[in-house]
């Protein structure tokens, strides 16, 4: 910490506090507070800390201390500032002017919001030589992102909608739909974090999957509103309605995964959607779910009254360009943009956009690719220099030296693994037990050659038995045979419809026959069995 005396503004600070005998750490916190964009100053401080402490753990410890300082010292700083003003009389140039109107509480909020977190993430990057991959991995996390790329239009619409209702002080309901992983929750939480809405609204966010049953939603809302709780669901419902009928602050109620509230007669959903129409209620209701037409199909009665009908907003699945933008933005934030080559990114985004447009998948695949590249490189590095294990420094420098970007080839192999489906995964490894192969071949034989496609386990066993006898193989008993079938079922090749008797359960093939023959990898056996019609006759 003594290094901080070399900060550019410490000279000024010294003139302030030289006689007071303050610790340098206090000095530093003053400096960061002195001007409003705190972020600009902390990095310089950070760097100093980094240089002074070589290892990662050390820097972490420092970070913690820093944070604590920031948090604990804030009220004091205010006081110091005032004292300083009174004592010296001469106001420092700009900083105080921008500072003076803000209240301490807002300042606190500003402090804790961004700067320390970000520094935390940035710090190890410069120190740790091999962290480029891990930085990329971290950047491609699927948690709530800081800024939403590719959802600007929707965000704008959402904000407009809420702003409109806020300005007119009127209630409204909005239903946001979209496939999983298109950023519905992320956009809403972004909106909810906006200071202007935070101030104007009382915000209640409920994820409906956390509810025990549909009706417990009332008591949850009551809890969030801070009303007096009652035991019964009906009581709490009337309490909410009473509250809405009274004059109150604007209320923003966000119901995530709303389809979980479905009940038999949809009483809960109907009553929630009726709240905005209660006279004098100032409620903006936002419901999130996957289904495009949830409100039409399960709430048809809302159509009858126009004031109840929710406004609809659909989140399209991400396009290729949007996915690329998101990934590049994430990587740029972490400063590891060069980890992916252009073609690799194009391929990844194109494939994911074509299949689902789910950003969680895209990020997942991206992370997986980086992981695989990392492990491959580890192998490369470790194998030739086994003696180097003693001094890890040289090994790690070697690692950083050939840290090359992820290429087309790696992305393609991961994509093939993921989107080739389970068929693909199987064909790579030759791992079908013999009896399972024969079982599947007998099934195909029946499907191809027999007239009756309605296959039950008894019949399949009969054919299987014949096939086995012909080849002088051991025939499995019926009970064994059933468990064999369920083993194959776990691969997704078969589907068993269990009846009361195992013998009567229906068997159906889930895969295409060509794919299956490819997966079995035993052309000779397969073709022999499939063409053997004699096994079918009794």
């Amino acid at each position, binding site marked *: 910490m003594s290094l901080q005396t070399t900060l550019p503004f410490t000279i000024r600070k010294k003139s302030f506090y030289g006689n007071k005998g303050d610790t340098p750490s206090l000095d530093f916190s003053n400096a960061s507070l002195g001007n409003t964009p705190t972020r600009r100053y902390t990095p310089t401080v950070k760097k100093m800390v980094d240089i002074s402490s070589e290892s990662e753990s050390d820097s972490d410890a420092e970070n*913690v201390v820093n*944070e604590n300082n920031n948090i604990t010292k804030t009220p004091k700083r205010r006081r110091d500032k005032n004292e300083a003003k009174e004592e010296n009389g001469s106001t420092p140039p700009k900083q105080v002017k921008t500072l003076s109107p803000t209240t301490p509480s807002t300042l606190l909020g500003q402090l804790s919001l961004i700067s320390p977190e970000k520094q935390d993430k940035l710090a190890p990057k410069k120190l740790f030589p091999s962290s480029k991959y*891990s930085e990329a*991995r*971290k950047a491609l*996390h*699927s*948690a*709530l992102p800081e800024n939403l790329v590719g959802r600007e239009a929707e965000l704008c619409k959402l904000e407009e909608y809420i702003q409109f209702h806020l300005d007119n002080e009127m209630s409204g309901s909005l239903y946001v739909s979209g*496939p*999983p*992983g298109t950023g519905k929750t992320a956009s809403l939480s972004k909106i909810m974090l906006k200071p202007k809405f935070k101030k104007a609204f009382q915000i209640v966010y409920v*994820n409906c*999957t*956390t*509810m*025990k049953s549909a009706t417990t939603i009332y008591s949850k809302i009551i809890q969030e509103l801070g009303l007096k709780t009652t035991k019964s669901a009906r009581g709490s419902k009337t309490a909410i309605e009473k509250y809405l009928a009274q004059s109150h602050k604007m209320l923003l109620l966000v119901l995530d*995964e709303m389809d*979980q509230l479905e009940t038999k007669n949809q009483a809960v959903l109907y009553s929630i959607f009726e709240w905005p129409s209660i006279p004098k209620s100032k409620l903006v209701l936002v419901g999130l779910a*996957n289904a495009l037409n949830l409100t039409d199909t399960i709430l048809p009665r809302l159509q009858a009254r126009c004031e109840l009908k929710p406004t609809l907003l659909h989140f399209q699945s991400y396009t290729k360009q949007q996915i690329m933008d998101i990934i590049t933005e994430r990587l740029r934030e972490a400063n590891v943009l060069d980890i992916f080559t252009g073609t690799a990114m194009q391929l990844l985004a194109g494939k994911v956009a074509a299949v689902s447009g*789910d950003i*969680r*998948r895209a990020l*997942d*695949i991206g992370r*997986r690719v980086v*992981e695989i590249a*990392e*492990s491959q490189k580890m192998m490369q590095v470790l194998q030739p220099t086994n003696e180097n294990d003693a001094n890890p420094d040289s090994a790690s420098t070697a690692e950083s030296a050939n840290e090359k970007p992820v290429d087309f080839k790696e992305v393609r192999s991961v994509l093939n693994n*993921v989107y080739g489906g*389970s068929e693909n*995964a199987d064909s790579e*490894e*030759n*791992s079908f*037990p*013999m*009896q*399972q192969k024969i079982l599947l071949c007998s099934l195909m034989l029946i499907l191809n050659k027999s007239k009756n496609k309605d296959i039950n386990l*008894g019949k399949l*066993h*009969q054919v299987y*038995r014949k096939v086995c006898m012909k080849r002088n193989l*051991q*025939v*499995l*008993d*019926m009970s*064994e045979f059933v*468990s*064999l079938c369920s*083993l194959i*079922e*776990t*691969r*997704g090749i078969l589907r068993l419809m269990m009846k009361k*008797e195992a*013998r*009567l359960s229906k068997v159906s093939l889930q895969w295409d026959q060509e794919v299956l023959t490819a997966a079995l990898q035993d052309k000779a056996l397969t073709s022999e069995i499939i063409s053997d019609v004699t096994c079918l006759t*009794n």
Partner: protein
Amino acid sequence: NNRKKTNIPKTPSKNTKKISMETPTKAMAKMYLTPSMHQRTVNIVKPSTPLQEARLKLHVSVLPKSLPCREEQFNDIYSFLHARLSDKSGGCIYISGVPGTGKTATVNEVIRCLKKSMDAGKLTNFEFIDINGMKLSEPRQAYVQIWKQLTGQQTTWEEAHKLLQERFSKSNSKRGMTLLLVDELDLLCTKRQDVVYNLLDWPTKTGAKLVVVTIANTMDLPERVLMGKVTSRLGLSRLTFPPYNYKQLEEIVASRLRGFNAFGGETIQLVARKVAAVSGDARRALDICRRATEIAENNDREIVSMIDVKRAVDEMIASPKIQAIKHCSEMERIFLQAVCSEVHRTGVEEVVFQNVYLQLGPLCTLNGETTPNVTEALAMCARLGAWRLLLCEHSRLDVYQRLLLNVSTDDVQFAIKAVDV
């Protein structure tokens, strides 16, 4: 005062009073009792012969120091978990494979290694929790188990869920990573799938620092059973454990028996090939080997020979139905034959009792027996139904009940002919 102190241990009545001072409910509430089991009064006999030692080594519960033939999967899981733990970011991985392919063993091994490196100070602290879907009476009890392992407190599931929700949605820089192993994931799926959703949604929260490892048998469980939003959260890091082939099974058994020559020649290979042909289940191979040692011991052999293994295999992969038919009474066998001939006549699998009875008459005369009356025949039918050689409808339908052969017709012919010879 002094005298009192010395008195206390002597008088038995006071002593017992002190033990039973707290009512059971109070003791439960304090939770200071760790559950204990009765000690056995006799010492366990140490294994003396090589066969006994081998049998001890072959037990399924004995985990080997390193798992042979699973190095690749071990590395995959290790690198995934290590990366997540050192990054302090959350995530999930889905591991699938048929039973007995070493899924849980490998994951536990990985976690042991991670714990070791945590103790050595190379890795940041993490807490490890494991739940098993099979051990929960109800999916929501998962919350209770997780909370119990985190803090040691026992609450209701609503409360536990609320506390967990709070814990994982608020970020706390002091808290370390949490590693959650969910075994038998498919049993946690209910209609609403709220438990699975919550377990997989927590890792996506920024402050949660939770890594979830899920294990199940079915390869396509996410696509088949889980909802779209749950599958999306489960992600695409998946790993499949293929069934062992015969070489791997052989290596597994051999690695356990290293240092003993209890198994002769190519006996292990026979077991491995037999098991690999059916399921590739390592547990089964070990069980067969254990059974073979027992058979060898009963026959006073030093070394397990091919015959013992053959017998063990026959026992474990047995077909008891032919035996059952062989031990039926004469009339019951004729009845089964009648059913067969009726099936043959009609060409339909399901036959009606009265038609079978018509077939029974001529068959009895052919065999030189008097034909049983309907009541006797029905009683026979019910007996065969109880043995599950036949599948019968309810007996109140009398002669109109439909019968279905639960063994193949060939089996019946085979069993009956074998007796005749």
